[in-house]
């Protein structure tokens, strides 16, 4: 009975406890060992003593004492560790340190430290999934199709950079917040996207959980916007794949299978973020997704509004990818010929030449215009550039249709 309570506590509390231990001990590895030791101690002690009043506080202080013990033991061979142990032992943390407010701050500290811009982007993702979400190195490697040693090394390097370069365990100041939050949101979004396009629901679910945590801890409009965007995309998950695993485009999806609860939540969040008037690219993308979510079909979609939102997005966050999406929306509003001119203009500038969706978009527009030869070669180029199974099946299907 108690054992399952402890396992449940591990799932719900271990990341909070770890975040606080990192602050108290000032070291990621030491804190991780202390966390394991604290839970081992709970398994040994609680069956006799019963569940403590505040298990979280108990685990934090048990972890801290275990770490000090550990350092003292190793300190027999290394004086600097002994000094560190004494310094930690002198810091009387007391109970105020363990109040909920401080603990929540620790979780934010952990997120901002793991997503620090001075870490490599792939290291930020690996470290966040490992420490904030508690995924194992194997799970992260599986999700990103890399080897476990490669992920482990990324995490080791990130931790030593944090230690050696003196990356602080801190929530950034007001002045630095917008930029730093942006880095955090991008990590969350990358995790979500990987889960979404590689059809790894667990990864998308993890990103949404992270998004919820951020909104709870720091309800900035863009954090709200990102959560909305993820929920609105996620609402279409079951509609975007056929029974054989082929990708189904938005316009061909069975909208009755869209998850209405997620759409309601996402749309409400979009409105909330837009009302703040301090929104950015994630909120705008979520607003576009919300317009799609409201429409009963592709032809009933308010394409004028979507183009308008892309116009704003292009001003706020100019990029060739946004331009491409805007071109696709214009094709829906004004016909494929108008869209194709815009897509070709991007490619003619030498941009997005290796971006699979640019070629897929071009292929689709050529197909609709009856320019079969061009459509075929663009679909082939897109196929060369994608490794995702569902996308490959979709592109192969289109090629077969055009050739048949």
């Amino acid at each position, binding site marked *: 009975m108690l054992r399952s309570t402890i396992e449940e506590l591990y799932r719900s509390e271990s990341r909070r406890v770890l975040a606080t231990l990192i602050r108290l001990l000032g070291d990621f590895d030491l804190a991780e060992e202390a966390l394991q030791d604290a839970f081992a101690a709970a398994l040994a002690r609680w069956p006799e003593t019963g569940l403590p009043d505040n298990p979280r506080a108990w685990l934090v202080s048990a972890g801290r004492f275990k770490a000090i013990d550990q350092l003292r033991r190793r300190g027999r061979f290394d004086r600097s560790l002994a000094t560190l142990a004494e310094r930690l032992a002198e810091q009387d943390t007391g109970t105020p340190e363990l109040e909920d407010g401080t603990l929540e701050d620790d979780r934010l500290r952990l997120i901002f430290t793991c997503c620090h811009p001075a870490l490599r982007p792939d290291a930020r993702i690996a470290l966040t999934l490992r420490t904030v979400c508690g995924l194992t190195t194997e799970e992260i490697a599986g999700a990103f199709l890399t080897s476990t040693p490669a992920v482990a090394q990324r995490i080791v390097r990130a931790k030593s950079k944090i230690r050696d*370069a003196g990356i602080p365990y801190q929530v950034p100041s007001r002045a630095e917040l917008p930029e730093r939050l942006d880095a955090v949101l991008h990590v969350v979004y990358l995790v979500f996207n990987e889960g979404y396009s590689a059809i790894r629901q667990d990864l998308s679910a993890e990103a949404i959980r992270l998004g919820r945590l951020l909104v709870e801890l720091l309800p900035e409009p863009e954090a709200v916007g990102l959560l909305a965007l993820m929920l609105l995309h996620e609402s279409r998950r079951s509609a975007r794949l056929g029974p054989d695993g082929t990708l189904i485009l938005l316009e061909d999806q069975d909208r009755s299978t869209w998850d209405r609860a997620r759409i309601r939540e996402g749309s409400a969040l979009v409105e909330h973020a837009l009302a703040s008037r301090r929104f950015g690219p994630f909120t705008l993308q979520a607003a576009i997704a919300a317009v799609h979510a409201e429409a009963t079909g592709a032809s009933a979609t308010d394409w004028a509004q979507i183009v308008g939102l892309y116009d704003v997005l292009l001003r706020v966050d100019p990029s060739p990818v946004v331009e491409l999406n805007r071109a696709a929306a214009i094709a829906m509003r004004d016909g494929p010929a108008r869209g194709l001119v815009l897509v070709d203009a991007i490619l003619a500038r030498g941009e997005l030449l290796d971006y699979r969706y640019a070629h897929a978009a071009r292929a689709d527009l050529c197909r609709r215009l009856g320019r079969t030869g061009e459509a075929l070669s663009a679909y082939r180029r897109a196929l060369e550039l994608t490794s995702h199974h569902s996308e490959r099946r979709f592109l192969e299907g289109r090629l077969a249709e055009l050739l048949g």
Partner: protein
Amino acid sequence: MKYLCLIYSDESQWAAMSEEQVNAVMGEYFAFTDEIKASGHLLGGNSLLPTSSATTVRVRNGKMSATDGPFAETKEQLGGYYLIEAVDLNDAIRVAAKIPGARHGAVEVRPIEEFDAA
């Protein structure tokens, strides 16, 4: 005249050395430092932590960017240095971003290696 002597070496060679070899090279450095201290040449010097601890700071159009890793372009050349005391990397990055050179070139921020007082 004052001169800055910059030391370039292959980090992977350092990493591959045994503790004994490292101690031997460090011994040479300590002897050299004592020698130029005695001769009156020494103004100061530090050992840097490896480039894996480096952060490169740039400011473009008023927007600061800090990225992982050392300065790796060959277009720009080393033009000067500041040795600063900062609370942590965020503080160091804030200072580095204010160096005028960060607006057209780049500033590499590297922690100084602290040796345990033996």
